[in-house]
């Protein structure tokens, strides 16, 4: 959810300022040795802001910088039909700069729609609803409790300040993934995580669980979109780390604007924004963010993000090149908002969405997914089930996972695997079974008219 804030404001020349008035903020004169004032290239009126790194550093004044960043967000939302007036949107909030900006921008959009609604005579266009969720992972990540309490206070303040329109705030512990199964969710979660010895595997397992939790909250409270604050920098790191884990086939699924594999589609409206810009925006507008202290990581993910930071410092367009290259890989059919058939949605929105959905007709139509991380399986990972009739369900589960999860998360011996399987949240297990049943059902439908009697010996 949160961008990892790599490469923040580097020269530290920026003071936090209250933006009560529309004063353009100026760069301190000591850094501007070349000319006495650099004018914004857009409005040509005010002085530029600089020192935050990135390709646009020193080109815009504060106002134009803000509107440029918001513009990128809004373009992503409209061209991908991310948010329609009848939607209920859940913003995944980690407290970091990216999700803070995502929340801010979603609020700004909602506020604008609300003003239009109030001002219009017939009130025909409804305003989309917004909720905020914070996933509390302290049972797994050993975050000091006083930090967590402070964080909760800060988040409450932030969300209550972003009204009207009012937003529902959900604080959800990660063990909620077990809530429908049993009462000892926390113990089972800790046991589950303890089986995973690889540090990268642990991080990725936690990410998968986090998404399961988000999906659960969203469907429980009637949201139909989840907004993640992932920015270019985060996506560039993901491109490299997925490549490094052998996930070249499934990589395109995670880096598009829309990910509709899930029951509640996930959207990434900040996909064109750089971490450096986002950090600058937070500084300019004094947006409060929180950072919870976690143990230093020895995982591949953190090695990759330091590598990408290093490259970005050497060349500020590196992150966008990485994402652009990965953007040339074929996306999946679920990387767009499913076509809106709801008659209540304004025709204009439906038409626009249809227009933008046309481009992905070259993508493959049906995929199998790993029950653990939900990534599409490549040819070599797809199992021939005819050979696996009498296996234990834990072994069946193991075989149906992708090779990356098999290596870094799942235990290799059967006994530990059995234990791991029993500790899995029911929703993941159900996902695996659903896949197999769906396949059988699809086949059965085709031959239904030739079957003589019901209740054959099927599993």
């Amino acid at each position, binding site marked *: 959810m949160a961008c990892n804030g790599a490469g923040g404001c580097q020269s530290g020349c920026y003071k936090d300022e209250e933006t009560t008035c529309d004063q353009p903020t100026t760069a301190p004169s000591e850094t501007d040795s070349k000319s006495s004032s650099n004018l914004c290239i857009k409005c040509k009126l005010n002085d530029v802001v600089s020192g935050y790194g990135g390709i646009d550093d020193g080109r815009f004044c504060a106002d134009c910088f803000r509107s440029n960043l918001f513009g990128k967000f809004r373009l992503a939302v409209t061209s991908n039909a991310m948010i329609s007036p009848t939607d209920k949107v859940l913003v995944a909030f980690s407290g970091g700069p990216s999700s803070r900006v995502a929340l801010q921008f979603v609020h700004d959009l909602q506020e604008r729609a609300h003003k239009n609604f109030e001002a219009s005579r017939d009130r025909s266009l409804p305003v989309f609803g917004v909720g905020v969720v914070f996933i509390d992972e302290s049972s797994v990540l050993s975050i000091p409790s006083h930090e967590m309490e402070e964080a909760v206070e800060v988040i409450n303040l932030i969300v209550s300040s972003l009204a009207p329109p009012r937003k529902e705030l959900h604080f959800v512990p990660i063990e909620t993934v077990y809530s429908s199964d049993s009462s000892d969710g926390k113990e089972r979660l800790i046991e589950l995580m303890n089986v995973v010895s690889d540090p990268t595997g642990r991080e990725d397992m936690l990410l998968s669980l986090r998404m399961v939790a988000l999906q659960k909250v969203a469907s429980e409270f009637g949201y139909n979109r989840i907004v993640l604050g992932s920015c270019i920098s985060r996506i560039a790191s993901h491109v490299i780390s997925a490549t490094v884990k052998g996930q070249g086939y499934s990589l395109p699924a995670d880096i598009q604007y829309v990910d509709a594999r899930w029951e509640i589609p996930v959207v990434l409206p900040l996909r064109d924004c750089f971490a450096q810009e986002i950090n600058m925006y937070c500084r300019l507008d004094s947006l409060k963010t929180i950072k919870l202290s976690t143990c230093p990581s020895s995982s591949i993910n953190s090695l990759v993000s330091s590598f990408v930071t290093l*490259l970005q410092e050497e060349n500020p367009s590196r992150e966008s090149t990485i994402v652009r290259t990965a953007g040339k890989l074929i996306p999946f059919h679920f990387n767009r908002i499913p076509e809106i058939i709801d008659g209540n949605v304004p025709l204009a929105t439906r038409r626009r969405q249809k227009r933008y959905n046309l481009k992905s007709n070259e993508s493959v139509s049906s995929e199998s997914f790993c029950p653990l991380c939900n990534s599409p399986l490549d040819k070599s990972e797809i199992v021939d089930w005819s050979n696996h009739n009498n296996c234990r369900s834990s072994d069946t589960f193991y075989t149906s996972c992708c090779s990356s999860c098999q290596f870094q998360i799942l235990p290799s011996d059967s006994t530990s695997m059995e234990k791991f399987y029993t500790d899995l949240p029911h929703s993941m297990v159900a996902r695996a079974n659903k896949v197999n049943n769906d396949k059988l059902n699809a086949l059965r439908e085709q031959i239904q008219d030739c079957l003589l009697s019901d209740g054959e010996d099927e599993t």
Partner: protein
Amino acid sequence: MEGKRSVRMCCLCNERRASLNRPKTLEQICRECFYLAFEDEIHQIIVSNRLFIRGDRVAIGASGGKDSTVLAYVLSKLNRIHDYGLHLFLLSVDEGITGYRDDSLETVHRNQIQYGLPLKVVSYKDLYGWTMDEIVKLIGLKNNCTFCGVFRRQALDRGAAFLKADKLVTGHNADDIAETVLLNILRGDIARLSRCSSIITGEDGPIPRCKPFKYTYEKEIVMYAYFKKLDYFSTECIYSPNAYRGFAREFIKDLERIRPRAILDIIKSGENFRISTTTKMPEQGTCERCGYISSQKWCKACVLLDGLNRGLPKLGIGRSRVAIGCKEENESHGGKSIESKQCGSLDF
């Protein structure tokens, strides 16, 4: 195991003492099992990928470095034991780098005698009229790897044609290919990204090239050469310190420490990338000047050579908005793009 032994036994044969940790699998094995595993894996790659057919004349790109020396050694050994029926030759390129290439060429001459393989040497001086020393004197240490790589590719093809070779093999190992996959992602070179992880490339060109070491770790090649006491020359090219590839190489070394199999995983990702068909890819044609394959009017070697001969060394470097073969120099895309232009952009 009886009693308390401080000595570990090889986990494969259990007969001999373990003397090394195999880099790829971290198994503790003895030398003989290592040689066997190493050689057999390469044999399986050659067979399962159908790299050669009986009677093929195969030119081995030999630089005198560890990869090509081990390649020559193992290939001739496998050719003998498994009776591939190949005619093997050593093909070496003399770029004209004093203090580096002349030393490594001596190694190749010794290999010729040690392995009993005929040797052909092609030189930049004969082919192009320029040595790398002369080129570097003219253009300095930025972009020199571009010149060398482009020239070497043609040089190898010409040498292979002279030998009437059916195939060219090079010693590119798993680390090299993983680096290249990463580099192509970083550089945005989608065309190369789609080709660089193939074990056979250039089948529609003058001569197909194979990389039998595609899945072989660099560390294992070094280990093999070390234990077998093979004769090779082990210094970095004196002109290479600024290569962009260095970033990727450092990263991969760090990666290998955390997870050795990541190198093969990168290659697997490279093989699994599916490129969108709407992406514009370069079309293959022929060079108007020399007839070599090229996606532009003139092949890169001709462009670079033209630049050198006219005293315009930046011609062909960086992105050009001007048609190739014209007088104007290329614009730079902001100061940074030329400085960070990747060297070692070996065309596969």
